[in-house]
């Protein structure tokens, strides 16, 4: 019941925001909907921990541990982003942008994001991922500045080019399923059981096509170019959702498919994923060195993290799978915090240029300390959670005897770390060179930053047992073998 409600509530909220008499209350409606979804999603996770599987509509909407994890992450980020949006959007509203339209889209976007982890039928997952992209395009272009429209166009063309390719991939998957005899329904679960008897060549073909199509949507190199544009131009609350979970959700679908491919011993794709993951991390690390816009900086760090998750999944051991799902969790909570902080800096100083921000500590102590905290966390400094999951991935890689990959990954992570902290150092310390006209920050934005920072600080020093168990169960769904 809770599971169906999680998907249905945002849809109802979108409809309410669209109704003319309620348009004035669009923000309140969005807040109510996202903050009802969050406890329900947590409830679903708790139920998954006790029963292993939660069923909404049998055969169509079901959640296992991996699905419940992604579901909870999405609802957490969506809830905080809606708090942040309240103050931020009112401040940056301009004449031709209509706020109710923003919130209507935002709810639809949340609906699409929440539906993907709970749908069991792969072809419907394809539809869900397409819907995510479509609503995201509208949100990216919302501010209707020249830059925003250009970013939205590039984003739309690049990611939708992947749509037919991944569709063909899902057709090939269905073909493999039919030629293996069918029998059980075509769900992720059923496909995983059939995995060993499916034609490995077809599985590989399907995986390759879906990977190309969905990889573009999760911002994996070489189709990552839309990501920094979209993230620098979209409103900051949207960036938080885009970067924190929108990139993770297509990756979730890729990893689901990977678990099916791994079930077939003849189809080996792990090494491809390691290579492609490392390429993403590498490109992101070197671009991080030379960014000029702090929102683009956080965007490249997303490309880096997606690459790390992909590499970890490529190692395909139990330890690295655990690292991969923890990295998904830590990335979601930390990266959304980063974009809230970027949002308040943009509100306070109205510039995105790293070079024109100096002495942030003196200008706005709140924004300055938040920026230091979130960039240490996102770069992977101890004792923040990303450090833990990156460490888990590297050590699992060593145990899987992928020494070369681990060495390259470690070097690239260090380069990215240095790059991020170098830029942030220039922004935070020193004397303010130009007199800024600092505006006071809206309460809802401050609240969102504090609420988002809490789990980032907490999970670095203490992982509650249920969270750990959920991660462990989710990692098992990835189907890695060995230590």
């Amino acid at each position, binding site marked *: 019941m809770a599971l169906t409600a999680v998907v249905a509530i945002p849809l109802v909220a979108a409809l309410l925001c669209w109704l003319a008499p309620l348009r004035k209350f669009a923000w309140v409606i969005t807040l109510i909907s996202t903050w009802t979804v969050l406890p329900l999603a947590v409830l679903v996770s708790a139920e998954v921990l006790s029963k292993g599987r939660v069923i909404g509509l049998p055969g169509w909407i079901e959640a296992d541990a991996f699905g419940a994890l992604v579901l909870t992450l999405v609802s957490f980020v969506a809830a905080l982003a809606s708090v942040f949006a309240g103050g931020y959007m009112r401040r940056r509203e301009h004449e031709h942008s209509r706020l109710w339209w923003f919130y209507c889209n935002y709810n639809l976007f949340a609906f699409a994001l929440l539906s993907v982890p709970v749908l069991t039928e792969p072809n419907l997952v394809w539809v869900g991922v397409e819907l995510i992209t479509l609503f995201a395009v509208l949100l990216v272009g919302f501010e209707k500045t*020249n*830059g925003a429209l250009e970013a939205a166009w590039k984003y739309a063309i690049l990611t*939708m*080019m992947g749509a*037919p390719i991944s*569709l063909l991939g899902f057709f090939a998957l269905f073909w493999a399923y039919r030629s293996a005899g069918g029998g059980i329904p*075509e769900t992720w679960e059923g496909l995983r059981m059939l995995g060993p008897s499916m034609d490995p060549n077809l599985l590989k073909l399907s995986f390759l096509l879906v990977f190309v199509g969905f990889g573009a949507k999760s911002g994996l190199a070489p189709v990552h170019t839309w990501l920094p544009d979209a993230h620098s131009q979209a409103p900051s609350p949207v960036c938080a959702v885009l970067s924190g979970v929108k990139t993770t959700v297509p990756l979730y679908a890729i990893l689901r498919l990977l678990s099916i491919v791994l079930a077939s011993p003849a189809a080996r794709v792990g090494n491809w994923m390691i290579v492609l993951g490392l390429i993403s991390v590498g490109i992101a690390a070197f671009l991080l060195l*030379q960014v000029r816009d702090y929102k683009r900086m956080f965007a490249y760090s997303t490309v880096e993290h997606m690459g790390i998750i992909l590499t970890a999944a490529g190692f395909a051991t139990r330890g690295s799978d655990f690292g991969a799902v923890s990295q998904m969790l830590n990335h979601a909570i930390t990266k959304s915090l980063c974009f809230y902080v970027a949002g308040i800096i943009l509100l306070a100083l109205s510039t995105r240029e790293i070079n024109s921000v100096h002495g942030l500590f003196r200008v706005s102590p709140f924004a300055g300390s938040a920026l230091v905290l979130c960039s240490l966390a996102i770069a992977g400094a101890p004792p923040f959670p990303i450090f833990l999951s990156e460490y888990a991935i590297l050590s699992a890689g060593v145990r899987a005897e992928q020494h070369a990959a681990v060495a390259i990954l470690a070097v690239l992570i260090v380069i990215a770390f240095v790059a991020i902290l170098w830029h942030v150092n220039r922004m935070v310390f020193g004397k303010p060179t130009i007199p800024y006209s600092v505006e006071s920050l809206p309460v809802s934005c401050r609240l969102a930053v504090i609420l988002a920072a809490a789990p980032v600080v907490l999970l670095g020093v203490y992982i509650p047992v249920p969270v750990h168990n959920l991660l462990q169960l989710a990692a098992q769904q990835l189907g890695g073998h060995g230590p």
Partner: protein
Amino acid sequence: MADPQTSIPEALNTLCAGLVLISAFAMVATRQVQGVVRFFVIQSLLLSASCFLLGYSRNSRHLWTLGAITVAAKVIAIPWILRRLLPGEFYERREISQAVNIPASLLISLFLAILAEFLVGPVAAANTDPLIRINLPIGLAGVLIGAYSLIARREAIPQLVGILAMENGAFFAGIAIANELPLIAELGVALGVMLIVVVIGLLSRNIRLKLGTTEAGTLSELKEEATSWR
């Protein structure tokens, strides 16, 4: 390709396949924006014809439904949505500034068609179903040529039609290899395609209103510039 036992509907399907490929070439070769849309509609009609023919010869109600969905979504709804969303200015354009000139584009498309045949050859040859031997390579060729025209085109509508042509290619392969998908999945996919048209249509309308151009592909303000190392 057609051996003596081939039934008439399947022979006609082979004809459709050839025409689908030719209409993909035609979309690459047409400068007139209106013409590109027209060839897309023709290609969609051929796609649904192929569905009906195979539905008839295999007695599959499922393929009949799929053909009907294709006609409703791609032949009727999508051109209508485009007409409603975008003013005539978009259609009257002739595209002069393509990244690659048309003869070269046609050669590249030909190369892509051969590549598609070569790529799926091993998978398709292992299959006894004649349908897969024809539809899979042609469908993949449609996807690749669509992707190519997406890159080479500059105008908003031809870029959108490039995506739709890729979708048509994927479906043309799909009716051979995945012709028993659950109906809800097929409907979802058709809905997704229509939403793509709505969203890109809205976006290109905004771009024209704001930036005064229908050549969305030429926008290039945002890029990574080298840092001034102070």
